[in-house]
């Protein structure tokens, strides 16, 4: 049992933190996300070329740094502290995850493209009716000679405006919510029949509605087994959740630190409001929430590689993180008083990100139900 980071992992953290301190302060970020295109390709290029972090979780044979979930965790926590909008999660964690686990023939080349910063993925999974059920897939892929024809509508695809490729879940057999009959496809964004409606999200990210109309896919577009793709989707989504929990830890730490700082300088009734016990205890409860979120994030990222424990560990962590995002985020605004309501202060931006993470890949209720099933068996 060991809770320490290796020297390489600590260096990775320092490298990312130092770069973000120089290039990603709050005002800069606010200016970038408030206008098109909503991200900085030059930052992405620096991630690839200067920092080399886009290869963090890939093996050295593939040109990566030889890391895994813990490396993703380290990077994502730092990204959370700076509210980074560039598509590491969609590209490295999710796109890279599908390629690594599927044994796809083109995986090595595509991962090479990720590491170089040239290939960018967005995960086109959710649909207007699906809510958080990964098996709820109405998008269809029909066999067409050696290949497939794709039709459907994917909802709120985060990072789609920046992507070169989509990872798409589609139904190749069965009914709309069947666990069987789901397959995963690689679709180039520029393919004929792919259209998008792009928009910003409330927390400064970019997303799209993505429409597929008779999109022709070759046989090599299939990632993983035909019809039996759901376990692969669940595995990669669990990895994405573990990484998102790490991002949340960064966000939560900033919410808590920002609140401490603000209450120490804000004076009312002739004294700093941090001297009031009712506020002190609230900030202690926020602190406890943050520390427990960090503990659960470590737990989830250690266990995510163990298929027997993965799902339960990840859902437990997501429940804890979801609750912490709500409690810490809302109290951070409350303790900032009127200033917490302004767009000018960073605190509101962290709160908005925390709120979106709360339901990303499933709300607290969703993951509690999943955890219950895994730990306690079927409900009556």
């Amino acid at each position, binding site marked *: *049992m060991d809770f320490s980071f290796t020297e390489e992992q600590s260096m990775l953290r320092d490298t990312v933190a130092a770069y973000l301190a120089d290039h990603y302060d709050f005002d800069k970020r606010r200016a970038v996300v408030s206008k098109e295109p909503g991200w900085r390709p030059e930052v992405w290029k620096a991630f690839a070329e200067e920092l080399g972090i886009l290869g963090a979780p890939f093996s050295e044979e593939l040109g990566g740094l030889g890391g895994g979930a813990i490396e993703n965790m380290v990077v994502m926590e730092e990204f959370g502290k700076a509210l980074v909008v560039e598509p590491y999660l969609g590209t490295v964690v999710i796109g890279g995850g599908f390629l690594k686990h599927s044994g796809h023939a083109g995986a090595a080349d595509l991962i090479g493209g990720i590491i170089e910063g040239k290939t960018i993925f967005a995960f086109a999974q959710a649909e207007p009716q699906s809510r958080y059920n990964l098996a709820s897939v109405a998008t269809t892929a029909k066999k067409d000679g050696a290949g497939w024809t794709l039709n459907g509508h994917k909802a709120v695809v985060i990072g789609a405006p920046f992507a070169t490729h989509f990872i798409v879940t589609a139904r190749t057999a069965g009914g709309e919510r069947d666990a069987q009959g789901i397959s995963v496809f690689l679709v180039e964004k520029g393919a004929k029949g792919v259209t998008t409606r792009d928009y910003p999200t409330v927390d400064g990210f970019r997303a799209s509605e993505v429409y597929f109309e008779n999109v022709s896919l070759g046989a090599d577009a299939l990632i993983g087994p035909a019809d039996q793709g759901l376990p692969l989707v669940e595995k990669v989504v669990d990895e994405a959740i573990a990484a998102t929990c790490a991002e949340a830890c960064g966000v939560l730490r900033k919410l808590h630190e920002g609140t401490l700082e603000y209450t120490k300088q804000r004076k009312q009734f002739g004294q700093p409001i941090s001297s009031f016990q009712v506020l*002190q*205890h609230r900030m*202690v409860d926020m602190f406890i929430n943050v*520390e427990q979120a960090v*503990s659960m994030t470590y737990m989830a990222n250690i266990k995510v590689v163990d298929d027997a424990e993965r799902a339960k560990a990840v859902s437990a962590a997501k429940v804890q993180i979801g609750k912490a995002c709500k409690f810490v985020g809302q109290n951070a605004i409350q303790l900032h008083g009127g200033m917490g309501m302004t767009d000018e202060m960073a605190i509101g931006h962290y709160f908005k990100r925390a709120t979106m993470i709360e339901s990303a890949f499933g709300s607290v209720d969703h993951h509690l139900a999943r955890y219950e099933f895994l730990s306690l*068996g079927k409900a*009556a």
Partner: protein
Amino acid sequence: MNLDFTPEENAFRDEVRAFIKENYPAELRKAQDEHRPLTKDEYLLWHKVLAKKGWVAPGWPKELGGTGWTPTQKYIWSEETARADCLPILPFGMSMLAPVIYTFGTDEQKKKFLPDIYNGNVWWCQGYSEPGAGSDLASLKTKAERITADDGKEYYIVNGQKTWTTLGQYADWGFFLVRTDPDAKPQSGISFLLIDMKTPGITVRPIITLEGGHEVNDVFLDNVKVPVENRIFHENQGWTCAKALLAHERSGIAGVARSKRNLEKLRTIANTERSDTGSALLSDAFFRRKVAELEIDLTALEFTELRTLAGESSGKGPGPESSILKIKGTEIQQRLQELALEAVGHYGAPFLRDLSGSNATVGPDYARGLAGEMFNGRKTSIYGGSNEIQRNIIAKMVLGL
């Protein structure tokens, strides 16, 4: 970062498990199963087995009889002892007083007191709280005046009242916080004294708690004569010892392994009990949600404790962060008790303590004593520095407020 156990650690787990199985005192097991109050001797049976084996003091430095176990081995130890429902070792001497003696005591004091603590020969009790000094412990009034007696030796004459003295009815000795300088600021005029409970002038009076048990006591001190050499550390600097002791008290208080064991028991009960619709209670949507949330919170506590232990193994003692463990640990213990009581429904009501014969077996075995445990368990968020005081500690020591 990993959670793997090495082959050596797995072998250690097997060794511990086998040792408990072969050596846990049968009469103690029987008394625990019957949920009856233990006698003084019964309390110490398991302690003495472990002292003989050399495993009674995992937290002590190795040269004083500690086991020299790694944090992982200690984790395995607490898991295995909880799993087997072993009686927890009484903390007063072993984990509260001993660290104060080996950190602040003289060589003579170490030689005089530590071996008897280790072997369970002397039963210690704690004299901290007073009727007027609970959360505000430093306002304590029990007074110790230094005199030179007719024999030419120096003594403290102690007068005052202590309260909430747990199992003081059995104690041979007590460690007391007393005021030696009434003019100093509250924290600076306190000394840490060891007092033989047989000294004339000491009266121990039971306090019966709401569940009907006799666990705590008032202790009255009326001109109690204590040799000056029974003081630990400097005069008027007892607060330093007190604080160190409380930090140790807090870190053990999380009780993760025991809560895991109690959660297992709760699940067994809830799988046996029926919901209103006749299905297992554990499959009832509302009940299982409470169990699931508790289980997740317990996991979060466990990993927070593991992180704290990892920090401690790199040389830090238990710091103010251990207040988190106290707060969350006691909250979880209390929720477990509430849910167990809730789970047994009607059979939470019978008060079986004084009954015998056929009446003593009313209801399922697992329902016995649950209400009493729940009532008694309300103490955990009050003692050892109430959970509100723990928040003050974190606010001041960790957050710098």
